[in-house]
């Protein structure tokens, strides 16, 4: 008991530098959140701008197609969260099963490459592949299918967004799971082998349970992105014809900002996203601890 107390001081000391930096660089700038409730004018500054309460948030919901924009954002973001979890998990498990060391290393390195290309570059490549005379349409023509204007189709566009996001990031996202796999004690595998467990059983009874904590953690943190559908990607890929299925909150706010310096609106939208993320994360944390007696972080 006495020992615990002396350690608490050490713990506080260990946390001190990080907490200090967070206060200086994250908390101090949060004074800017008040802009969300203002008609902010840079000339007057934060302390003298006009207060407008919840007008900025209300404005966002009163737009003619705010319903559509929110629906697009939610749909694209949630599908991306799911894809960004599921594909890397499966991929990590497959890599784990692979016995050829060198091949494994090469694959691992290669799939991590697209993460390093910006959406400006990838957008050019994608429009080329999926273009009217692009590779995919040439393939389709072999089966006598009429060429499809993928980027003009509200049916295809969200699928392209989700698919290309997963394609770009799955290799990079796999790394976390590989680290988790490496953390599973070999003793457990040996024990399973002694029990005569086959490949499938080892996967079910050793590997997956070993990965659950990381999966739950990343799923929970992923909830923080339910309103982030990926500005860079959408901005570089969309066009007016697919506004209907592809216009998201961030692109809309961006376009308003071009005309009107709506600092209040942009901040309010940011705040809204943060609040939603925070609430969702708290909920899942509470649910996990109440029903599974499990602490996510």
């Amino acid at each position, binding site marked *: 008991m006495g020992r615990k107390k002396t350690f608490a001081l050490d713990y506080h000391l260990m946390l001190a530098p990080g907490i200090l930096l967070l206060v200086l660089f994250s908390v101090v700038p949060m004074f800017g959140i008040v802009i969300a409730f203002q008609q902010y004018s840079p000339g007057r500054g934060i302390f003298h701008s006009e207060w407008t309460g919840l007008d900025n948030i209300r404005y966002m919901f009163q737009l*003619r197609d705010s319903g559509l924009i929110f629906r697009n954002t939610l749909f694209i973001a949630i599908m991306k969260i799911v894809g960004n979890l599921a594909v890397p998990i499966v991929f990590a498990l497959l890599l784990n099963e692979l016995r050829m060391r060198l091949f494994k290393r090469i694959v691992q390195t290669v799939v991590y490459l697209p993460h390093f290309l910006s959406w400006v570059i990838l957008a050019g490549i994608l*429009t080329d592949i999926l273009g009217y005379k692009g590779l995919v349409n040439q393939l389709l023509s072999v089966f006598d299918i009429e060429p499809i204007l993928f980027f*003009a189709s509200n049916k295809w566009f969200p699928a392209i967004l989700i698919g290309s996001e997963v394609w770009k990031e799955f290799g990079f996202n796999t790394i976390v799971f590989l680290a988790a796999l490496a953390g599973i004690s070999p003793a457990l595998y040996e024990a399973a082998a002694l029990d005569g467990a086959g490949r499938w059983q080892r996967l079910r009874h050793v590997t997956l349970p070993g990965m659950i904590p990381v999966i739950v953690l990343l799923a929970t943190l992923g909830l923080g992105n339910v309103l982030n559908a990926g500005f860079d990607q959408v901005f570089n890929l969309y*066009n007016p*014809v697919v506004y209907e299925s592809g216009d998201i909150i961030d692109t*809309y706010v961006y376009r308003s900002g071009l005309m009107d310096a709506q600092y209040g609106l942009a901040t309010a939208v940011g705040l809204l996203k943060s609040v939603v993320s925070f609430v969702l994360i708290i909920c899942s944390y509470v649910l996990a601890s109440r029903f599974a007696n499990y602490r996510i972080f």
Partner: protein
Amino acid sequence: MSTRFIRNFTLLFVLSAMLTTACTGGAGKPESTAGTGGDTATAKPEATTIAEEHDPFGRYEEPLEISIGKSLNLSDKSLPEGDTPISNQFTRYLEKRLNLKFKAYWQAGGEAYSQKVSVATASGDLPDAMVVYSYSELRKLVDAGLVEDMTDVIEQYASPLVKEIYAAGDHAATKAATFGGRVMAIPASQGLGDSMYMMFIRQDWLDKLGLQAPTTLEELEHVIAEFLDKNPGNVKDQIGLPAYSLFGMTNNFPTLNPIFASYGAFPTNWVKDKDGNVMSGLIAPETRESLAKLREMYAAGLIDKEFALRKDVLEPIISNRTGVFFGPWWMGFNPLNQSMQNDPEAQWKAYLAPLGKDGKYNTHVQSPSSMFYVVKKGYKHPEAIMKLVNVQTENEQGLDPDADMDLGVDWVNEPLRAPVDFPDSIEKDAEKVIKALNNELPVDQLTSKQKRIYESWLKTKDNPTSDIAAWSEAFSYVVGGGQLLQPQLNKVPSLYYGETNTMVTKGAALGKLQQEVFNKIIMGSAPIEAFDQFVNDWKKQGGDEITAEVAELLQP
């Protein structure tokens, strides 16, 4: 934090001391702006300089250091060894003439520059002076109350040459910078030629098919159909008319403006309806007609199937996959220089086509100024920026024989760069060069720039790839610029170029509505009747308010 505060404080102290002497010295001077920086602006600290109080070229006795936001050209390689974008022949010249020195508050090029401007605007953290390259940026600065009122400074300090240039453009430049009756920036003034799109076409393809260059829209349709059908250039994946956007006010080429204009539609303009009331060109019946036609052309494959979807719309032109497109006069600089490199046999020609029903080639023109010199509110020497513009403009026109400028150094290296030039500057150069080429004008009467273009054209017209850079400029002026001199060209200015309050608040929503509907109509996923619904929606969602605002502003 603290050191800067102390520095500012000392500065303030010194300035207030100087101010008292200035006030006693400059007593009888008319004070126009009440309060803040306005008074000190025109006041001179030295009592001895009262005589040259408003001298547009008056040299400061003490060096005056100005902090600037410096715009860089990222690809510029023209500076000699040892010079930098903020220390070169231009800054030395300004130091010699005016005793100005420059310090970069920040410097950035391309996209980064506009980032810097928007951060500066939003945070209120501005350099003493900078150039903004769009009307929207200026308006945001003015709305935020961050820039100095330049009305009196321009009146008192603009040189006769600068005033002459503004007058030549009917003072539209200063009007563009006017907010609530006050001129809030020193406007630049550009040649208007940039906004006039013309038809560029493959002459060799026409010749091969025995076709004449089209003049009407029907003929143009026929030519495109023949190009696509017979494929005279034997190119893979040929496309119809390319378009980056359907129409544009300034340099967002290639567009389809000329097709709209041939129907008398000017969607970028504010126009008069049949009763003489002001109306947006977007909702005019002529625009509906044009859209119906474009829809028909798209269905027939005469317009690029992917026109709204391309990420790099110059690609098909550069790879010579199209034989016709619309663009401004300077296409030789880009993309045609690259197109020539991929196919040295290509022969591009420019024409004013398609003509309207009146037999004229109608075209919208842009506002003469979309670039502005702004001065931070409260800066003590706003007149210094005006003097800088005076000196730079004189120098750009080559009027100071003692300037000793190396013309090889790019003008972007001027500390603050936004040209103040006559509205017909491009036409003037083109006209002189063409006359000289036709032996109607002795070559020694050309300016050095015109002489360079003249010589480049003689050297490269038969073999463009021998010196593609020389060809780029010469082709642009002789072939593209030459079209700007044609008598059938009819410029249709907009009744209004600014942005009203409602445009600012509802612009994004209205823009989305318009782009979505127009593109869908042309691509066939919405019927032409959608246009009528669009007109209703547009009016209801803010269009009527905007129209009323514009009408009121246009009231004499």
